[in-house]
């Protein structure tokens, strides 16, 4: 029963990774860049939620929507001013810019909101469902997180599969030049991808801080790195890959903490990543892209 309970906790943690990883993976799929600042957009989203809900006593739904709007604008602004000018630059330059952006957001948050911890309000309410005579308890927040993750994943799949914008996105990720020839506005599409990724980040920020309520300017960075690992793990660029990668990573992390050592759980997570990349360099569900000369 302890094992089952650990697996459920892992799935709950993994769902958060998965939502963050979706943001990474979409951007990578289209812009072919690792948006290192994604984790920090999550942090900004969480702060907006915090201020809306705890300081201004707004309805949590309004708080989340507000955070989504702010994050979307933020994500698009970052893309416009920091990443767009580097579209043609080598990937190293783009990656360094993204790291710089991540530092910028963290330090800006520190100046604006002080490094002191803010405790995220409990919107969902404490409590749990008890199964098997109370031997297995699943907290409400874990249920909501897992539910949200599945819903988001399904909606994204539908969106990219069926909508016009989604098809444009897929076309851009396949071949930007050809997409442009077919009349797709590549810049708008990339911008749109950042917008969606950032809106997802706001939701992720809310869920992350609902489960782990200590909010600081560095809140987003470690989950960001882990989710990024999850995205690579599942095959970066692939939406189902991010979902599977996130969930697996969460479960591995919790099981490693429970059965190997809490101190080594991070190391185990990263080792699994290394092994997967060695066996399958494009990740679990990634597509093999042959190099062009």
């Amino acid at each position, binding site marked *: 029963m302890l094992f089952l309970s650990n697996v459920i906790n892992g799935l709950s943690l993994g769902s958060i990774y998965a939502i963050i990883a979706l943001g990474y993976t979409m951007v990578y799929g289209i812009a072919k860049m*690792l948006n290192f600042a994604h984790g920090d957009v999550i942090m900004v989203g969480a702060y907006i939620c915090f201020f809306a809900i705890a300081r201004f006593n707004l309805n949590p739904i309004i708080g989340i929507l507000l955070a989504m709007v702010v994050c979307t604008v933020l994500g698009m602004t970052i893309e416009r001013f920091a990443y767009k000018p580097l579209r043609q630059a080598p990937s190293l330059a783009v990656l360094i810019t993204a790291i710089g952006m991540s530092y910028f957001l963290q330090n800006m948050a520190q*100046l604006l909101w002080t490094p002191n911890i803010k405790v995220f309000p409990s919107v969902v309410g404490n409590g749990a469902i008890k199964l098997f005579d109370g031997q297995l308890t699943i907290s409400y927040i874990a249920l909501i997180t897992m539910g949200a993750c599945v819903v988001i994943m399904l909606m994204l799949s539908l969106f990219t599969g069926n909508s016009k914008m989604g098809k444009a996105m897929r076309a851009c990720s396949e071949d930007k030049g050809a997409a442009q020839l077919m009349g797709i506005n590549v810049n708008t599409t990339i911008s749109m991808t950042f917008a969606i990724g950032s809106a997802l980040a706001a939701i992720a920020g809310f869920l992350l801080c609902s489960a782990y309520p200590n909010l600081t300017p560095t809140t987003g960075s470690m989950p960001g790195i882990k989710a990024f690992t999850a995205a690579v793990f599942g095959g970066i660029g692939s939406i189902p890959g991010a979902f599977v990668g996130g969930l697996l990573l969460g479960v591995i992390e919790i099981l490693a903490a429970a059965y190997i050592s809490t101190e080594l759980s991070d190391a185990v997570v990263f080792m699994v990543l290394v092994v997967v990349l060695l066996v399958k360099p494009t990740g679990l569900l990634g597509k093999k892209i042959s190099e062009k000369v």
Partner: protein
Amino acid sequence: MKNVQRKISLNKTTKSNFVTYGIVIAAFVIMEILMAAGMVSSLLKGLLVPICVYVIMAISLNLTVGVLGELSLGHAGFMSVGAFSGAVVSMMLQSVIPDAIPRLLISLVVGAIFAAIVGVLVGIPVLRLNGDYLAIVTLAFGEIIKSLITNMYIGLDENGLHFSMIKQKFELAEGGKMLIDGPIGLSGMRKVDSFAIGIVLILLCLMIIFHLVNSKSGRAIMALRDNRIAAESVGINVTKYKMMGFVISAAMAGAAGALFASNYSALQASKFDFNTSILVLVFVVLGGLGNMRGSVIAAALLTVLPELLRAFSDYRMLAYAIVLIGIMLVTHNPAIADRLKQIKIKQYKKSADRKAAAMEKKMVRQTAKKEGK
């Protein structure tokens, strides 16, 4: 004519290399004179060794990022390996070799060797990947190394060395002491005054790198960076040369780590985290990829500057971030790059004109002489 040109360009690199050595030596001499005159503040005195450490870190990372062309986000991991292995050896030898300087030299070598071994172990999987995947795996290895050292227990007593992972599984005999106490790290080390050794180490690393870059292997490495497929097709062994650059870079970082450890009385693995890797990357980027002199200057200045600007420490990291983004945008902005190119062409034209004019004068003189005869 071709031969002449090559000679000139070779001379140019050698000259430029000597300027770099000159800067390092001059900085050392100036500091020694100022210290002898008692004009150096305690703050700067305390910073001398860290400056050496970060300079070595920067040039070694520049070898990986600038020369090899692979982004490493876990360079602090090698530094950590070097720091801990070097410090442990130094503490073990405390009774055998009471003199601090030879002990430090041994710890530097040991640090470099251990980091090189880890470099090989990390390099085997890492160098099979490319680009972003490679970057994320180096990041992963940085974290793995940090986690492993955090969970390492090493104790020393009369029965010899004791070692365990995760939990301390041994009991030390009377008079024994813990060298690495798991997450608490190293403590009770003796500080060594190692500025001069640091400078020598910088010069040594520079020499190795310059020599490598100008050698056949170095040209192979750079060919791989510029176009892997083309290089492979002319028969350059990818794994061998990549591994060579990577391991040399790791060994240097290890020596830097051992030097770093010698300057502090306590040390924790968490010091060598992602942020430290990024800090060094900032030095490399600001100094210019592939430009060793730039790395030396950037690392030295950026280690001193924040200390001078203590009053603005809130804004320090923010300024770093902005500068990092700014430099990338400016150097990779097509418009600005074009402008720079034009300036370069103009300069080239100017110098070409000058050369032509000089040549003409010479010719005129020579013909005049001939005619005079």
